[in-house]
Structure formats: C-alpha cells, structure tokens
C-alpha cells in the first residue's frame, strides 16, 4: 500500500491527476453540470495515458466534483450537483453573512476528512465482503442485482417508483442491444456493424445528464450574470477550530454517509440529506436554527457526501453493483482499463491501487479545492448562454473522442432528447442508468444459474444467501405497494 502511494508521486501521474481534479472543480462548480457528467467527460481524455494516471484522473474527478458542487450552492444557492442540494440551506445563509469563503473552507476540510475516513472504512469493509462474496452462486448474484436494482429505483425515484421502474426497464432493454455475451448472437443490430458492440454507455450518459440538462435549462433569458457572489476572507485557524468543535458531528455524518452510500442506488445526495436530518434530530436547541446558518448544517452534509462517494464503491468493487450514477461510470472506466470488479480484484492488487488513489485524492482535494474556490467560482458568473454552449461542445467532443465515431455523438444527442422528454414526463433518470448497468448482469446470472441448475429455477431459493436476498426483495416490493396503496387511500 505504501509502495503504491509512493509510486503515485510520479509527475506523469500527478500532473494529469491535478489537472483532472481542477476540471472536476470546474464542472462541479458550474450549475447544470453534474459529477456524473464530469466523470463521463474525463474518460475520453484519460484514454491515451498510462493506466495509473488514467485511473487517478477518473477517481480524482469523482471525488472533486462532489465537493465542488457546494461552491455554487454556497455562493449562489444553486447546487452544482444534486449532492450539494443540502448545502444550499445553511451554507448559503452563512455566505450572505459575509462568511462565504470561510464556509467553503470548512466545507473543503470536512469533505477531505469525510473522504479520508470513508476510504479507510472502504478499505476495512471491502476486503471482508469480497471474501464473503466468493461464496456467491450465479443465483445469489441474480437476487443481489435484482435487489440492488429495485432498491436503487425505490430510493432514486423520489416517490415515483412506478415511473422509476419503467425507466429502469427501458435502460435494461437498451442494454440488451448488441451481441449477446453468452451466445454471440446479435440483438437489435439490424446488420449495422457499429451497433454490434451495443449502445455505448458513456455517450448515453453524457446525453442523458449533460445534454438533457442543457436543453432543459435553455429556456428564457440566458444573458444574465449572477453578481451577488459574496466573498470574505479565509480563516484557516477559525475553520480548524470549528472542525474540532464539531468533530462528533463529522464522525456521525461520515458513518451515516457510509451506511447510505453503500446501498446500491442511494448515492451522495441522499447521504447528504440523511446526515443533515440526523444532525438536526440529534441537536437540541440549535442556535442559530438549522437552515438559518448553523455550522452543523454545513458540516453534516459535506462530510457525508464525500464519505458516501467512497462507500458507494463497496458494492461496486465487491459485487460490480454501482451505488450511484457516478460509480456506474467509474465502473465502466475500470472495465476499459481491464479492471474487473468482484472478489478477484483483491487478489490482483488492483484494489490497493484504487484505495491508494482514492486516499491520495483526498489530500490533493485541499489545494485543488482552494484554487477552485478562488478561481473557478467565477465561472458561475459567466452568462448562462456561454456556459450552456460550452457544455454542448464538450459533450459532442467527449462523445466523439471515445471511438472517433460520429455514431456515438448521435447516440449522445438521442439520449439527450430522450432524457428531456422523460424529465418533462416527471420520469426520474437515475433508474434508467441503473437498468443499463444492472440489466445485463441480471440476465447473465439468471441464464448462468439456469444452465448450472439444469433449468431448475427452484434452485434459486436453495442457498441461505438467496433466501435472505429474495425475502428482502419481496419485503421491499410489498412495502412499496403498501405505501402506494395508502397514498391512494389518502387521496
């Protein structure tokens, strides 16, 4: 591990790494651009580099963009990423009191600490889980993926589980386009050679999140600039004092973030709100009140969301089940770099490399974040029309660069329009990605299970793990139906 950390201190790795993190700050701090998009856009740029440098870029961006989302949330009350929505309450209130920069410094330090603890928890838990995962049969994996999909859809649908399930089904169906991995038979390719590899995941993601957001935002006057940016001095000693004083809140929030982030589909945004809720519930007579500029309201969500990013990797690295959209794309990138998630990851030494990069990223977050706060928050002041146009151009170039294929650009555009249509119908987009990621796995494990068990599906309930997972699935389905029924009765 120490050797891995030292080997990362190579200029050929460090320079693209810091540049990528700066890019993450830029994307994350730009309202409308998400952490998911930042990761999706950095992947084509990482292709020509050595594997270590490429992984450092991708992992670096995934952590940085989540913190950077807090910059516009604090200054402008516009969350840069969904995970920063909780920061719009107290952080923005403090910024209006002239403590904008100090709030962001506290935010940055808590993000770093939350991330470090989160990565250590990941290192502690992931290995044990990986050893346990070796006992899993194809049917166990089938239930786990199905449970992960359903849980993810339930959590990320925001109360619209039915629509979320439909979106996941569409994602599942899209993922079936291309050559069937078990029989090499083409599906929905129609003699169009470029489709035989299936719908490229990255352009689809860029379209769904980046392009659809641009199309959605391009309404009304886009010439305005936001000039209410409040800035005060950095107070390093004061900020460190605040951190020490609120250490119990940080630890509590990191554990909350880790627990929520480890659930497939939950993600950093739910972790942030969860930690905010826990902090509020466990504070008696808060002064000032939560939402009115309480430091705990700043510290809790920011500590939790970075810890959740680390925790989301537990199911991703151990089972290949992404905890959120960002991890889903990072997972896709791992596969490109010949890193297969699962128990074998820990034997190959790739896990140590990933942990080292994740840990080092937390340390690099401080200088990158300070530069970001000082410089890139200015981007939020540019006219919206300029920012949106730049996003479109980056999306187009990013999609093209994957395979130098214009088809990928069309795929990106089609998904952008499709995403916009779905959002207009109030359909949540996150389940669609979960369907695209988990769908092929569900199919593969189901079919492998059937082949191994000679077509006997009752074998799917033979092991203890299968019984527990399928029972959990039934319970969640039942709870969702019950909730839907009671809300219908309420109407």
């Amino acid at each position: 591990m120490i050797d891995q950390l030292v080997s990362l201190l190579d200029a050929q790795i460090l320079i693209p790494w810091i540049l990528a993190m700066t890019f993450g700050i830029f994307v994350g701090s730009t309202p409308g651009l998400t952490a998911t998009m930042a990761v999706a856009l950095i992947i084509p740029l990482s292709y020509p580099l050595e594997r270590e440098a490429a992984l450092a870029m991708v992992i670096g961006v995934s952590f940085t963009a989540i913190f950077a989302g807090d910059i516009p949330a604090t200054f402008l009350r516009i969350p840069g990423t969904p995970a920063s929505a909780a920061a719009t309450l107290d952080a923005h209130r403090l910024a209006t009191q002239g403590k904008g920069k100090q709030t962001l410094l506290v935010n940055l330090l808590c993000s770093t600490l939350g991330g470090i603890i989160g990565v250590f928890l990941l290192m502690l838990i992931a290995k044990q889980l990986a050893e346990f995962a070796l006992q899993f049969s194809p049917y166990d994996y089938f239930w786990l993926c199905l449970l992960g999909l359903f849980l993810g859809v339930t959590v990320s649908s925001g109360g619209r589980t039915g629509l979320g399930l439909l979106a996941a089904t569409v994602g599942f169906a899209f993922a079936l386009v291309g050559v069937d991995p078990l029989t090499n038979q083409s599906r929905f390719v129609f003699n169009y050679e470029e489709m035989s590899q299936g719908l490229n995941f990255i352009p689809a993601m860029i379209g769904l999140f980046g392009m659809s957001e641009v199309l959605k935002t391009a309404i009304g006057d886009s010439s305005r600039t936001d000039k209410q940016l409040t800035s005060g001095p950095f107070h390093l000693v004061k900020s460190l004092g605040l951190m020490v004083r609120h250490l119990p809140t940080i630890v509590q929030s990191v554990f909350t973030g880790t627990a929520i982030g480890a659930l497939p589909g939950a993600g950093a945004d739910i972790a942030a709100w969860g930690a905010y809720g826990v902090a509020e519930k466990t504070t008696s007579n808060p002064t000032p009140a939560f939402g009115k500029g309480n430091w705990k309201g700043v510290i809790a969500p920011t500590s939790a969301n970075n810890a959740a990013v680390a925790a989301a990797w537990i199911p991703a690295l151990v089972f290949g089940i992404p905890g959120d959209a960002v991890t889903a794309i990072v997972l896709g990138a791992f596969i490109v770099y010949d890193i297969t998630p699962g128990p074998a990851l820990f034997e190959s030494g790739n896990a140590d490399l990933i942990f080292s990069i994740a840990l080092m990223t937390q340390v690099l977050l401080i200088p990158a974040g300070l530069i970001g706060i000082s410089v890139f928050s200015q981007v939020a002041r540019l006219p919206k029309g300029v920012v949106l146009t730049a996003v479109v151009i980056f999306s187009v170039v990013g999609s093209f660069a994957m395979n130098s294929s214009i088809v990928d650009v069309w795929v990106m555009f089609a998904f952008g329009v499709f995403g916009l249509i779905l959002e207009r119908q109030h359909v949540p987009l996150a389940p669609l990605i979960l369907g695209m990621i988990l769908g092929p796995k569900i199919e593969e494990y189901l079919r492998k299970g059937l082949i191994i068990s000679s077509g006997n599906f009752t074998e799917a309930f033979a092991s203890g793990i299968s019984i527990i997972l399928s029972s959990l699935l039934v319970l969640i389905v039942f709870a969702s139906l019950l909730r839907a029924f009671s809300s219908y009765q309420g109407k």
Partner: protein
Amino acid sequence: MSQIKALRGRALSRELAGACIWIVLGLYFLIFSYQIREPLTLNKFDPGPSLLPKIMGVLLICGGVYAATKTLATRDCKRDDRNSRGSRLLAATVFFYIFLLPVLGFHIATAIFGVFSMVIMSVGPGKSLICTLAIIALIHFVFVNLFAIPLPGFMGS
C-alpha cells in the same frame, strides 16, 4: 375558464403521449425480439438471447397501458407551463451542428454553432465570437495537442 380547460387538455394529451412512449418502446423490443435467431449450439437449459427482450417488451407495454389508463381514469396530470421553445430551438441547433460536424470539420462547424447558439441565448455577437474561439482553442489544445485525440476533420478527413 376555457383557457384553463385548454391548458388541462394539453397537459392531459402530454401525459398520454408520455404513456405512449413506453408502449411504442415495448412494442419495438417485443416485435424485433422475434427476429433474434436462437443459435444452434444453444445449451438446452439456456432460455436464449431473446427471452429478456421479450420480457422487457411486455413489461413496457403493460406499464404504458397502466399509465395511460390511470391518466384517463383520474384525469390527474401535472401541469407543465414551461416554455419549451428555447429547448426545441437549441435541440434543432445541436442537431445541425452534429450533422455538419463530419462535413465541415470540428473547427468550422463549432465556430458556426458556438456563435449561433450563444446569440440565440441572448449573448452579444462580439462576446459570442470571442467565447467560441476561446472554447475551440481550449478544446484543440486539450484534445489534439495534450492528448493526441483526433477531432472530426473537414469532409471526414
């Protein structure tokens, strides 16, 4: 009053159109799943590559029919008064940009798109031109000079 009725009617049509998306997608996957050939070497216990597409197709159709029925039965539709003209205009602009990209190449197509897109989003022409050129230079530097990733060239070159 009649205006409210018209708005509600439009919102209802939009909800129904949304339900139709699921049905059309479901039909697409269901119908074309019958064109997937079962390989001769298929393991007899493997349900084959067409099973899941069929299931997905049926689920989407059922979901779409349910959504349509629910909308019609409850007349429950969320009004969406957002002006979509800007979205449509930008979508059309992006469409032509992608269409022109392999013909004119990245630099020329992006220059045209960048200026046009910013102007329709109320940014001044001079500012649009400067910003577009800056974006092109930045992308050229990052992709071509820094990472040697080719960008679309003139007439596909």
